[in-house]
């Protein structure tokens, strides 16, 4: 009975038990809900699914969700790298405090984050008042959505890149310097390639998280159809109409697009590994 795939592939004991627990938990927590969603989609049929998704309002919600998530994650990619770099490479007063504060977006209920950001960026808020003379309105526009998603996604980039920067060997940079490379060149040709896989992972995590973000965004977005209405809100609206099929259709559309994007990021990662070599 213990033959076949369950035969321990390594001399380390405990494979059967730990594999069993892993598969059970994974099924209950991840595979079942996604399976249920896809099962619902299969029951509806691809033609009807397409009909339900193919409307101007849903497309503008989907493009808004993915565009905002992409912009926020790109911002986080740059800013998160800088933040991680500063935290690892420099010693300054308050460093540990900032280090701990990076995790706050993980811990804070997203609704609280959304309300706090809205209060700050609303036209009568502290930042909102300062930005108003420049003709810039943040809350209740698409920019507000970016701000919320930047807040949500930041720790993902920082926390994936930070340990890799810590592991960077100073020797490499010193060698590079003794061989005559300037600082910018060392940064570009020595350090960045080493960090690329971690950066891409952090970017992918932040992106995946912010595409589906609901709690914080609905407070700061104006939720106007075609302009500031995100796809997750549209799902909730369909549910309020007891239209479970249409809700599932939008959910599946998001799942498919997310999956394609993560696949693309993985492909870039594999390609960059092959080019740079294993790090």
């Amino acid at each position, binding site marked *: 009975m213990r033959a076949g795939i369950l035969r321990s592939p390594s001399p380390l004991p405990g494979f059967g038990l730990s594999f069993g627990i892993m598969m059970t938990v994974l099924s209950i927590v991840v595979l079942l809900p996604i399976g249920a969603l896809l099962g619902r989609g299969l029951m509806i049929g691809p033609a009807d699914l397409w009909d339900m998704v193919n409307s101007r309002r849903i497309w503008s919600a989907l493009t808004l969700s993915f565009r905002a998530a992409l912009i926020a994650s790109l911002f986080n990619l740059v800013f998160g790298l800088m933040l991680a770099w500063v935290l690892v490479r420099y010693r300054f007063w308050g460093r540990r405090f900032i280090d701990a504060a990076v995790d706050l977006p993980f811990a804070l209920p997203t609704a609280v984050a959304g309300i706090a950001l809205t209060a700050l960026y609303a036209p009568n808020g502290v930042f909102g008042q300062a930005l108003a003379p420049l003709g810039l309105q943040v809350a209740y526009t698409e920019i507000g959505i970016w701000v919320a998603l930047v807040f949500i996604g930041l720790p993902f980039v920082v926390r994936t890149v930070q340990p890799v920067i810590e592991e960077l060997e100073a020797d490499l940079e010193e060698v590079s310097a003794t061989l005559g490379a300037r600082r910018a060149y060392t940064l570009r040709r020595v350090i960045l390639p080493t960090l690329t896989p971690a950066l891409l992972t952090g970017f992918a995590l932040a992106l995946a998280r912010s595409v589906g973000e609901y709690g914080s965004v609905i*407070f700061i977005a104006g939720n106007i159809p075609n302009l500031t209405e995100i796809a997750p809100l549209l799902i909730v609206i369909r549910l309020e*109409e007891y239209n479970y099929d249409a809700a599932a259709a939008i959910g599946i559309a998001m799942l498919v697009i997310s999956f394609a994007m993560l696949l693309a990021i993985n492909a870039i990662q594999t390609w960059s590994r092959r080019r740079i070599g294993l790090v």
Partner: protein
Amino acid sequence: MYRTIQIGGHALAQGIFLRSLGDGRIEIDAGHARLSGHPVATPRSSETVSFHSAFRKALTGGHLRGGLLAGLTGLVLAFGGTTPAAAQDSVEILNVSYDPTREFYREYNDLFNAWWTAQGNAPVTIRQSHGGAGAQARAVIDGLEATVVTLALSADIDAISERTGLFPADWQSRLPHNSSPYTSTIVFLVREGNPRGIEDWDDLVADGVQVITPNPKTSGGARWNFLAAWAYAERNDLDPAEFVGAMYRNVPVLDTGARGSTTTFTQRGIGDVLLAWENEAFLALAELGEDAFDIVVPSVSILAEPPVTLVDGNITSDAQRAAAEAYLQHLYSPEAQALALSHYYRAWDTSLAAPEDAARFPELDLVTIADFGGWPVVQPEYFGDGGIFDQIYEE
């Protein structure tokens, strides 16, 4: 009546019942001092469906015991405190309601229990659940075991009946006034001094006026707003679809619920006018000061009827049925009506209300949902998928 309460972790005290504090605690006169705490042995009068009942379930789940138990016990002591252990022999009611009734039902539950026990019955444990009306209806459809539902509009209760068959389709004729013990209407809340000079619905479609209202897809109250504007256009020979479309093009923020819109207007300073439940508008004035906002009453509005009903299929015992039926019927008693009036609802019986509560409401021309053909017609036609509201945003 002597009652025993628990103070802090272990100490008990006994004395004459003075009053209920509304959050489950009561105050007693212990002879030398007045003390307050959770009553022991008799269940709490009102307990929100939440955290520690779920917690107790998790604890009895067996598999969570062991290492976790010590930590959980500490937490339960900290949060749960004095949850009575034996509640099986008492009757429990779960009232699933919408958002703005929170304050009203907190007080009504105490009022009902006082009256119910005075009739010689055992006290009833009443639990409350609040949220957006649509989401609450969906929770009941998906299996939340509501004993009674008290929602923002009958369409949501119709949906429960239609999808689950837990109670008959003609539920709305079971109690007086279309099963609506209290009603309200839709009015305008404007900034102090009414700087934009908003007097009636046609001022809302003017260029540059910003109107705040929630999304009728997710908010029950917003559907009343929509229909009130529609009624105005029909009365004044305007094209209603065009008129309401123009109004929604002046909406800069479409919140998901009535409270969200109130916050956007009052706290964030967005918009020139808020379309609000009358009771929410009065509440905003009472909470935020009369000198910050004014109420403007339009020439036409709609009679908003938030109905109540018993969920027959979820009743488990005769005792529970008797208590739940009495719970709803007592909403029509003069005391409960006075309470509703003091919470700014338009109730029917003003005999026991304070004069200022009864006199607060301006007379205005109210259309009813029946003028539109009733919710079973209105819901799909106006707010269904691809309905009139959706068409506003499709080009």
